[in-house]
């Protein structure tokens, strides 16, 4: 069962206990424990292939676990149509009929969700308002902008008034305005008491929306807890420092960076980061590193955020202790 780091608002909507899953002989999920209460938003963070989408498919009843149990509203969503009805699934892709209008799409999904004819019109009006897309109700989906398509995609998952909504990277590839609009929709949902499970790569999004976060790596939950608790603990620690380099470091410069406790942030090799306690302030660090041949152009100092926690949780455990142990840079290093 999930570790109750804070009070769960009510009876859990979804509970995963000791869930393991293998697909085509490969372990995808291994011993997952999670619980999600009504009105609670859980952000699932993890690299590609960590098992986020598979976990969502399990909750949606699309897959059944090899071991452990999945319960939605107390029933197995793989077997119970009633349990599936309680789940609204918003896939990563724009899963809409492109030649149908927004209202027609929503009406079709209402029908597929088993809503009787007399309730459909009302349900469509309700999600149009909830997602703030009533102005495009009559437009054919294929003619809408990407941001609107995303909002319709979410609205379609809400048509059956689900107690739990699963969102797989809902703001993938949209502009800031559309992203804000989507966040507003999710905020409204949360206020209505809907439980939300959201898989995302977007840390600010998770910080803004989630009550709890779970980091998933190689099919296991490597850290999980209430966002506020996790961030509070981080903020009592040293600030995070980020270096921006002019060019990718050569071998010698890289060694200097690693010895000083920096690790690359991103694939370009131009951003390096550390949360280690430092002996030098920003200006001194810049001078010291430059003197040692590291092409640093900028040093940023800020309080640690969710991303720091994530990188820390996903960092292989044995790296810190092996070989070149990180040690704080001091002025004495410049010989």
């Amino acid at each position, binding site marked *: 069962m999930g570790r109750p780091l804070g009070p769960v608002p009510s009876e859990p909507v979804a509970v995963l206990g000791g869930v393991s899953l293998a697909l085509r002989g490969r372990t995808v999920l291994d011993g997952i424990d999670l619980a999600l209460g009504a009105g609670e938003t859980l952000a699932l963070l993890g690299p590609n292939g960590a098992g986020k989408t598979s976990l969502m*498919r399990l909750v949606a009843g699309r897959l059944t676990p090899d071991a452990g149990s999945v319960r939605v509203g107390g029933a197995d969503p793989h077997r119970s149509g009633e349990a*599936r009805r309680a789940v609204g*699934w918003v*896939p990563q*892709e*724009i*899963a809409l009929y492109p*030649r149908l209008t927004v209202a027609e799409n929503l009406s*079709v999904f209402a029908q*597929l969700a088993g809503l009787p004819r007399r309730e459909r019109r009302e349900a469509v009006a309700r999600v149009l308002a909830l997602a703030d897309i009533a102005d495009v109700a009559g437009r054919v989906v294929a003619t809408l902008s990407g941001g609107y398509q995303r909002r319709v995609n979410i609205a379609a998952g809400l048509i059956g008034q689900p107690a739990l909504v699963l969102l797989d990277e809902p703001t993938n590839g949209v502009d800031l305005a559309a992203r804000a609009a989507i966040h507003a929709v999710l905020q409204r949902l949360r206020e209505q008491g809907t439980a939300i499970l959201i898989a995302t790569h977007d840390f600010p999004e998770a910080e803004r929306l989630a009550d709890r976060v779970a980091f998933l790596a190689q099919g296991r939950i490597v850290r999980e807890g209430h966002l506020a608790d996790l961030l509070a603990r981080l903020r009592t620690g040293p600030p995070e420092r980020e270096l921006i380099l002019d060019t990718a470091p050569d071998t010698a410069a890289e060694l200097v960076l690693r010895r000083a406790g920096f690790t690359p942030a991103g694939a370009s090799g131009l951003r390096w980061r550390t949360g280690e306690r430092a002996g030098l302030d920003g200006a001194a660090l810049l001078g010291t590193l430059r003197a040692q041949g590291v092409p640093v152009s900028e040093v940023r100092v800020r309080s640690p955020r969710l991303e720091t926690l994530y990188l820390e949780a996903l960092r292989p455990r044995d790296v810190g202790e092996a070989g070149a142990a990180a040690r704080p840079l001091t002025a004495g290093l410049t010989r």
Partner: protein
Amino acid sequence: MIGAAFRVMLLSLVRDRAALVMAFVLPTVIFSIFAAIFSGAIGDRIRIHLGLADLAGTPATHRLMDALSADPSLRVTRLDAKSLAEVAREVRAGEVDVALALRGDLIAGTSSDAAAPADQPIVLVENPAKALATPIALGQLQRVLNEAMPDVVLSRVIADVERTGKIGADERRFLDDAFAEQRAKKEPFSFASLVERVSTASGTANARVSYYAGAITAVFLLFAAMQGALSLVEERESGLSDRLMAGPGGLPVVVLGKFGFLTAQGVVQAGLIFLAAGLLYGVEIGPHWPAFLAACLLVSAMAAGLALAACALAASRQQAHLAATFGVLLLSAVGGSMVPRFLMPPWLQQAGWLTPNAWAIEAYQSALGEGLPAALPALAVLAAMALAGLGVALASVSRRTI
């Protein structure tokens, strides 16, 4: 829920103008073209292109040339050739399908002439690529000789008898004159009309046209159903299946909705094809309409079921496309939708019963020819195919997890 999937198919088709036109205009266009091909290929008049060269230039060869040219079942071109080699060149070049060169007089010589063993005044020059033209040309030549020049045929017979010594030259001349006189009076020669033609057709064009109307309906509905069923693959690739599978009815209700839509669309398309058959070729549905409707419904259901099964089993869009094109082409070729099955080798004719096309053709032919009781076996096979296809499609999407 099934109605929702039906509605999606209908709205998607209505919004796609090009697809809409193709779905409901193409059936009649394709029928008209295929019907013209079929009626030329298996109708009673295969009008081969016959080349004629009169190398002898006798009165009898002139008569034969005129008789052949006047025959409505042949398309004749008089070749301006001076030798057999030139005739062969024309045939090889494809100017004509087959050629007849009249190199000697048709009237047999007198008894004093040496009876040459190679006394064959007509040479047929054939092209192996158009082998079918040879027996047709030979048959038509024999018919025209019997009908238009019976005296010439008989005179050759009498010449043979004279050569055996059973009759003398005077008697031969007497008989020749008698035959010439009979021909001049236009009195019929009994040997020229030994055959009376009796047809199984009951007055309407049903027996003649229902074969290829059924054949074209089967192939068209299979193609149309495959195109419609491809939406199953598209929905899988666009993530729609993810959403649909998460619903309480899952994908099976979507498959059922598509099955219903494709069957209804097929009935309309089959109706349009037979409407064209009625207007262009005089096919009458009349008293056989219950059997005809049953055939339309079950052929459409069969096409929908098989197409959905193929698309549900296909792991990718490419696989589905291959099944849609090559699979349907193969079934249609073996099943007689392209070449009539009676023209195929016996083993292939037998293999044809394994295809849905053969049963669809059989259903339409017996429904329009004899009515419902005669069509029942074929209708039962079509219903079984439809159910089997639908069953496979439902089982396949129920088992699919990703």
